[in-house]
């Protein structure tokens, strides 16, 4: 599948390790991530204590496993009900097909301005680039996404895209864009954004949103948000295009109600989202508002290949971002270092799976984890992310991984033979004794060099205490 479009951003060229180094050197980033992680953690602890979270999680897991098991059938039903409600449904096999459908539609309707609300699927397919290449203007209206669009940056978190920036950094971005001097308080900055974005809502020809999930029972599109911008994007422009990953479907309203409850708990540690938009078809005759046309683009983009495999659970994800916040690695380097719209544990699983296992940059991601399992604990639908990471690692086909496998082949040959094992242990112990000075090695050659780049190695045990 080498023809597949990269999921990682085109400017992701440096090796992942280099990008993590840059991120670690950024003290402001570290402070912003620490604050974000701590505030999510506190909210999440509180909400989990106030609710029977473990039972809710078990139920959510059951729901998602069932939905993915019946995915073809549920999608067919969703398509049928959306169409019956007056919407137009398109199945896009890949990013190119999805982007082309939307730019063709915009051209056919003579559109010039597109307003967008937050959507991971459109980040994945690089829709903004495609729209701009076709000569139209596209404006992100989620506050965080808008800030990043102005700053020319990629989102760092699935739910809170600009969480890596602090108030002052945001202020600088907004001042650079507007040329105005802006005050430092939060309210004033938000008011400024509101004024600027109102102009966009009022004049956009097309509104593009994501889809948190489609309810097959009624053909309803759910868009969950906290700012109200998605409501305007899906209601004011003449045309609403909703872009949905094909796995984002639930069977019925029983299931939808449960997911709607657990999603904000996991995502922001609150028991309800600010706005829940439930969209069934475009404006019907006699209705006062809503778009004239509703288009639902259902994106495959590599997802259907996971069905029925031991990686299928990656499709259970409801994009809450909890595994990101819970991940010590993500909290250390932030989402941008991942170079993919999907960062953190779920991003490290999804990115190579969607892009193809031969992708040099995408296939580094699953290795950037200590497999500590805190992502699994945090996941509201119980995806065993630490297991998926191991399974994805095994499927990587890059040159680097093949080289690593050659080393492990030697390892397995030696260590599957008890005598060779004992010999290698004895040699290692001699090497250790030679390398140590007063019980510690500060610099090791060869394969040990990366260890001692960051730490000393105790050559005696228990280690000689520090002076």
């Amino acid at each position, binding site marked *: 599948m080498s023809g597949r479009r990269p999921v990682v951003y085109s400017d992701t060229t440096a090796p*992942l*390790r280099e990008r*993590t*180094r840059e991120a*670690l050197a950024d003290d402001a980033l570290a402070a912003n991530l620490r604050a974000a992680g701590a505030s999510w953690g506190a909210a999440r602890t509180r909400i989990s204590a106030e609710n029977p979270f473990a039972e809710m999680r078990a139920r959510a897991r059951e729901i998602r496993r069932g939905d993915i098991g019946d995915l073809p059938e549920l999608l067919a039903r969703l398509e049928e009900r959306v169409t019956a409600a007056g919407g137009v449904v398109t199945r896009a096999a890949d990013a190119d097909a999805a982007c082309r459908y939307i730019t063709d539609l915009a051209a056919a309707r003579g559109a010039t301005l597109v307003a967008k609300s937050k959507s991971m699927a459109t980040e994945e397919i690089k829709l903004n680039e495609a729209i701009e290449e076709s000569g139209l203007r596209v404006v992100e209206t989620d506050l965080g996404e808008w800030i990043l669009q102005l700053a020319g940056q990629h989102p760092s978190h699935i739910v809170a895209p600009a969480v890596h920036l602090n108030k002052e950094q945001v202020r600088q971005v907004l001042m650079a864009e507007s040329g105005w001097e802006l005050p430092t308080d939060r309210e004033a900055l938000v008011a400024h954004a509101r004024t600027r974005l109102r102009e966009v809502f009022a004049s956009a020809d097309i509104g593009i949103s994501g889809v948190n999930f489609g309810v097959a029972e009624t053909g309803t599109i759910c868009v969950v948000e906290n700012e109200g911008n998605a409501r305007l994007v899906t209601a004011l422009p003449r045309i609403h295009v909703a872009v949905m990953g094909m796995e984002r479907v639930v069977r019925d309203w029983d299931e939808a109600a449960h997911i709607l409850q657990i999603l904000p708990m996991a995502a922001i540690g609150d028991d309800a989202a600010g706005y829940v938009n439930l969209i069934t078809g475009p404006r019907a005759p006699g209705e006062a508002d809503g778009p004239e046309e509703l288009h639902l683009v259902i994106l495959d983009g590599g997802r259907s290949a996971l069905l029925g495999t031991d990686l299928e659970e990656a499709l259970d994800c409801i994009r809450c971002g909890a595994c990101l916040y819970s991940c*010590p*690695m993500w909290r*250390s*380097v932030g989402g941008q270092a991942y170079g993919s719209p999907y960062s953190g544990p779920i991003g490290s699983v999804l990115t190579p799976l969607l892009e193809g296992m031969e992708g040099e940059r995408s296939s580094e991601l*699953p*290795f*950037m*984890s*200590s*497999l*500590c*399992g*805190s992502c*699994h*604990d945090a996941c509201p639908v119980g995806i065993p992310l*630490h*297991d998926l990471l*191991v399974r*994805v*690692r*095994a*499927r*990587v086909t890059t040159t680097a*991984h093949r080289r*690593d*496998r050659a080393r*492990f*082949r030697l*390892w*397995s*040959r030696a*260590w*599957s*033979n*008890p005598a060779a*094992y004992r010999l290698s*242990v004895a040699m*290692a*112990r001699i090497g*250790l004794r030679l390398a140590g000075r007063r019980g*510690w090695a500060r610099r090791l050659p060869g*394969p040990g060099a*990366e*260890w001692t*780049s*960051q*730490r*000393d*190695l*105790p050559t005696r*045990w*228990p*280690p000689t*205490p*520090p002076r």
Partner: protein
Amino acid sequence: MRAMLMRTCLSDVMAPSVWRATRTVLERAGVEVSVPRRQTCCGQPGWSSGHPDQARRVARTALAAFAGDDPVVVPSGSCAAMVRHGYPELFAGQPEEEAALAMAGRTREFTQFLAEHGLDTGARGSGSATYHDSCHMLRLLGERESGRAALRAVEGVELREMEATDVCCGFGGTFSVNFPEVSGRLGEEKARHAAATGADELIACDLSCLMHIAGRARRTGVPLRVRHIAEVLAG
């Protein structure tokens, strides 16, 4: 009661005192301990690096070395988790599947084994200690208590909890050398949290975490002593 001791490759290379201390404690508690000579490594390094075929080859030696019905005791939460959590997947559909499931069922991390059988170690000590929850012990084995219980049972030792004790120390096997800078940052945070308790030493059930935390602490000038829990219990 009888038990087979899995020494672990890391203890063999870096710290034979750890598996010897484990044997001492078990014997003192009345367990008849055997240390199968043909054991090597559980296979985890290959498994978690994405090389299941290579890992399986090594893990087969463990299945052979620990054949029988006696419980297998491991002074490492991570190696125990590999056997209990990893082997069923590693050997699924393989000729050794049944043997692997059986071994997974009778393998226990050292302090879990002590707790499960109510074994008294009769250990004495002095001073204070803080306890590090290693990730595979905590989340793959779901064990938060047995290590702490073993420490609390040591007469004369005071247990002090550190901040963020459930956060990974950043070791992560080959992660520690593939992304050493991220690993190092997390190790330093862990060392600082441990040192901030003012406890005399940091104790864990996993040698790997301790080796990493101690090494990072020394490199960054954080005063910290570490010991494996078996060494504390052996006195």
